[in-house]
């Protein structure tokens, strides 16, 4: 009797974990960001809400609208 309970608990935990990973990745896709790549190979990611991203993202939106 203990084994089916254990299996159910493991399946429930795995399902919860998978659902949380799926939800967090989906939420991350909706967030805006600007990634800058430099000649020395380094990269800077400017998240939505940062001062630099707030200047760049409106320009990006303008480009997207002009291109459609």
């Amino acid at each position: 009797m203990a084994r089916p309970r254990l299996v159910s608990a493991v399946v429930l935990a795995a399902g919860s974990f998978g659902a949380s990973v799926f939800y967090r990745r989906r939420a991350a896709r909706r967030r805006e960001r600007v990634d800058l790549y430099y000649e020395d190979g380094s990269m800077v990611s400017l998240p939505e809400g940062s001062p630099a991203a707030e200047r760049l993202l409106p320009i990006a939106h303008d480009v997207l609208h002009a291109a459609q």
Partner: protein
Amino acid sequence: MDATQAIADLTEISSQIEAVVVSDAEGAVLGTNIKGADRAKRVAEGAARLLDEAGSAATGREGQLAQLEAATPEGSVFVVREEGRTIAATTSPDPTVGLVFYDLKSCLRSLAEAPAPAPRKHAPRKKKEVDDGPA
């Protein structure tokens, strides 16, 4: 290879890329697949502004900004600058970033390649008649 052909090849191999504009160092549009010169110019100017603003955004860095991606839920804007030319492209949301950058750089490099010189045609040599003189 001219810009129009390079852009046609690019959009054929990359299904994620939607609109493309190639411009020179002065901002003049060299080639695009966008219908409407005004819209193409707006995209080119926007790309130049993105590079300028981004260049001043991360101050204190020693390296030169080479490329950028602006990701939004509507789609992404990619801008690559190489050897005086800039290519700007828009894609659908959530693209394969590395692949898009590779394709854009390949497009710029194909524009930078000079055409092979045509082979020189040599004029046929005239045979000189040797005069042995009187025997």
